[in-house]
């Protein structure tokens, strides 16, 4: 099973990017399952996914809460066994550290999982976030196979920033986008540049 794991700082646009991706996948006739991880007593992101016109079938009574990577891995294995989607999309919380989660998948995940990690970065806040929250941002980019630089309609991406992001992601490529205003298929195309 292909697993697309999305991370990135709070408010970077992960849910918007994922919504676009899910539309891309379903337009191609693929089945996709999604695991939403969200901080807070009441979920908002899952409602946003369900409101985009996709047919959403809740699993496990409607909620998979994965604050810990061990819980997440159990959920992923269960979905592989019981649902068999073409693609499993996992949205991590905006406080999750990509490097740690990737490490958990590498150590304890099944060999049948084809994991691709994608970090979403908010270009509009990048310069200030990297100054104020560098330790967090650094670990959210470490271990990413691809960096999607979002909100470039608000602040255009500059080469120096992209180079820094790529460096923090261990040399992985950066691709710019505006998740709210994209051509159909473009998110999937960006991801497939790296995964195929």
């Amino acid at each position, binding site marked *: 099973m292909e697993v697309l794991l999305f991370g990135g700082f709070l*408010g970077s646009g992960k849910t918007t990017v994922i919504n676009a991706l899910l539309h891309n996948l379903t337009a191609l006739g693929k089945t996709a399952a999604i695991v939403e991880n969200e901080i807070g007593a009441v979920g908002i992101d899952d409602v946003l996914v369900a409101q985009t016109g996709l047919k959403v079938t809740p699993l496990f009574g409607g909620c998979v809460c994965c604050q810990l990577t061990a819980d997440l891995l159990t959920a992923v294995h269960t979905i592989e066994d019981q649902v068999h989607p073409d693609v499993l999309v996992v949205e991590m919380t905006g406080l999750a550290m990509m490097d740690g989660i990737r490490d958990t998948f590498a150590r304890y995940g099944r060999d049948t999982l084809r994991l691709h990690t994608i970090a979403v970065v908010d270009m509009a806040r990048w310069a200030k976030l990297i100054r104020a929250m560098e330790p967090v941002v650094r670990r959210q980019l470490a271990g990413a196979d691809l960096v999607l630089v979002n909100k470039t309609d608000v602040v255009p991406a500059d080469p120096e920033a992209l180079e820094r992001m790529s460096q923090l992601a261990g040399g992985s490529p950066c691709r710019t986008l505006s998740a709210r205003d994209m051509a159909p298929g473009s998110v999937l195309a960006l991801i497939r540049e790296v995964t195929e």
Partner: protein
Amino acid sequence: MGHEHEHHHEHAHGHDCGHDHSHDCACGHHHGHSEAERLVEDALVLSKTWSGEAGQPEQLARKLQSGLEVLGKLLEEDGIILGHLKGLLRCGTACLACSVTRADAQDLTPSPDWPPAGPCPWTLTVTVLSLCHQELVTEKTLDKLFG
């Protein structure tokens, strides 16, 4: 964040977000934590839902937006939110989401059937996530703005 204790620390890079980092945590288990983990464990996480039987969608939407604007001004650091403010208003089957990551902007995402005709049953959920100025917003603040 699932922790019973608060963690206090010094920010790297001379960042001053205005809250107290001076006293040591005595919880006894965090000493191996990285700077990133300490920052995350200090995060403010507040989430609350209000509901009613007969609300006017446009009026509730204004309340959501104005409340988030106030929160944005309280929590902003150098013009941005070091976190995420989110609101979801559901009126009948329609909904309106509002996301704030910068003090001067709100991203609105309405469902295709927004705004519905009122009055209608409604729920309003607001989530505040902030790694800065944590002491400035409490449940009481949210009740005052959205309750």
